[in-house]
């Protein structure tokens, strides 16, 4: 298989961004008449400032396509942070190695007890997250966490520093269903500037992680950019190109696209105001992704504020996290009755925007005539025990 990072070099993203800003009403109306897009040219038109004026029409199509393929349902999951130890400097991230935060890697027993707490809240789908540190976040440790937590959680995905195929295979064999890896920014110069130190410097290697994950046997693979680091249309076109590549080259993949905006965190990172993405922009983008990728899961996390999350339930999102903490070990200090932190979280990766409890999120979803789905995978599919 060819590498996406090689193919990406020849995709004229800059020109497509220009094409997007030059698009005309005739093109936008033609696409809205069809109700779907199948290539990057039409996708560029759909995320254009001009198409932003047709947001209601985009929303109509996105709502309809999503209902058809997923019904009125939203799948729920919870992240669990194992460690904030990290060897990288990522200027925008709370875990960045030069930030003075309390560092911790939680022991297996605590991982299991927190997973049990999350299961009591309803979750049957867990996302294991950790900083990149070969000493603290070793493969054996993660594998162990997966095998133990699978007794409680039928579905587990991971979001870790990229690995080689052979290092992924034991995690798949242990029963891990999915892998998420965000490119953060697809703009190479920006990428290099904000990742000055650590293995994360390797731009192309990170970009080819989804393919390695597929080769290792992960069933669900998630892509995304962190909007706010560079021009959002540039990022969106790159994510779209990456998604189309994955669908073409990895025919068994169950693809998910996360749409996430930068949040405030520890450190001195000052976001460039030109790159900020408004609520209208993110809504337009989600609808455009849906019209390009009718079958992909679209994930919206607690990075986004409550009112926006409520509105997006009906506009293309299929999967949401709820009641999240981004600090390793923080769930141990949560009040279980109303699922709220009993103390400050100085070691968090970033501060979430929607702090409602899982129960509140579920009732918000059913209040809109949608079904919150907690379980959508059974461990017996992948493991014999």
């Amino acid at each position: 298989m060819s590498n996406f990072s090689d193919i990406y070099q020849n995709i004229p993203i800059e020109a497509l961004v220009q094409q997007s800003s030059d698009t005309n009403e005739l093109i936008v109306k033609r696409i809205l008449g069809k109700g779907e897009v199948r290539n990057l040219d039409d996708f560029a038109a759909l995320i254009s400032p001009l198409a932003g004026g047709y947001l209601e029409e985009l929303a109509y199509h996105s709502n309809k396509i999503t209902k058809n393929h997923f019904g009125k349902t939203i799948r729920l999951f919870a992240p669990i942070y194992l460690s904030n130890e990290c060897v990288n400097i990522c200027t925008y991230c709370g875990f960045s190695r030069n930030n003075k935060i309390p560092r911790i890697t939680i022991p297996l027993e605590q991982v299991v007890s927190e997973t049990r707490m999350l299961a009591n809240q309803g979750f049957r789908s867990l996302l294991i997250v950790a900083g990149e540190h070969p000493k603290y976040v070793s493969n054996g440790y993660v594998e162990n966490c997966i095998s133990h937590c699978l007794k409680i959680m039928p579905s587990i995905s991971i979001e870790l520093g990229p690995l080689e195929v052979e290092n992924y295979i034991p995690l798949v064999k242990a029963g891990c269903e999915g892998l998420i890896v965000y490119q953060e920014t697809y703009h190479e110069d920006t990428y290099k500037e904000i990742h000055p130190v650590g293995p994360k410097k390797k731009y192309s290697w990170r970009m080819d992680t989804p393919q390695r994950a597929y080769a290792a046997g992960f069933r669900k693979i998630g892509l995304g950019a962190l909007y706010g680091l560079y021009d959002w249309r540039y990022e969106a076109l790159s994510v779209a190109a990456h998604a189309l590549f994955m669908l073409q080259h990895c025919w068994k993949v169950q693809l998910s696209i996360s749409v996430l905006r930068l949040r405030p965190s520890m450190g001195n990172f000052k976001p460039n105001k030109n790159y900020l993405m408004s609520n209208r922009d993110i809504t337009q983008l989600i609808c455009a992704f849906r019209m390009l990728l009718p079958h992909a899961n679209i994930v919206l996390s607690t990075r986004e504020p409550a009112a926006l999350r409520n509105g997006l339930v009906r506009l293309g999102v299929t999967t949401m996290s709820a009641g999240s903490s981004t600090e390793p070990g923080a769930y141990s200090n949560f009040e279980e009755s109303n699922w709220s932190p009993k103390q400050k979280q100085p070691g968090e990766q970033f501060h979430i925007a929607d702090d409602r409890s899982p129960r509140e999120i579920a009732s918000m979803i059913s209040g809109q005539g949608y079904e919150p789905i907690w379980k959508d995978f059974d461990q017996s599919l992948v493991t014999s025990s």
Partner: protein
Amino acid sequence: MKPLIIADRKFNSRLLVGTGKFPSGAIMHDSIEASNTNIVTVALKRANLSGEKDPFVDILEYIDAKKTLILPNTAGAMNAEEAVRIARLAATAGLPRWVKLEIHPDHNYLLPDPVETLAAAKILVKEGFIVLPYINADPVIAARLQDIGCSTVMPLGSPIGSNRGIETRAQIEIIIEQARVPIIIDAGLGAPSHAAFAMEMGADAVLINTAIAIAEDPIKMAKAFALSVQAGRIHYEIGTSHLSKMAHATSPLTSFLDK
């Protein structure tokens, strides 16, 4: 209307209903009731197979197992091994030893994998399961699955959730013509008229999920499908009085026989 008979079990309704994509358990329950179905299929991946009550995973509790046969399905399985494993687990959990065998490694169009389906069917039939495999409208795979002892075959009308109706008509006609077991049209039927058409073609039953679940009013849509399936079946049983577009030749072609 004659009853549907699968593996010696009699069903009065010829409409099977799927349980995905519903906006709530309560609406799903009421839609099943309105459809008058006797067979409801449930994805095992969404069910709680531990045998204990779980308030967060309660899909099975919305189905009245006295009135309807719960037909476990293997959705989510990407190969034979996974499908067999989850079917066995369902049986161990006390669900009926019937299985709607579906293996679709392609998550986008959910098209069935004939190679893995045949392999899994062989194992499950041997283990005493009543196997109802979901297949593409391919008469050869349909014949092979009947050879090894499947109790029905379930060819698709068009891809799952596409609501396009029967776009595989020519192949389905062959499958029906050659059938030794009941033929159930599964997937792609988007309107009650599609279901009636399938029944008029001679299909023994149809399975509907998306078209009911995502309808503005799923309960009324379930009723509409129930009626159309009956109408189509009754029409099939009494036989069509053919309308003819053929003109009659002024000089009959067989008049030489009278000379």
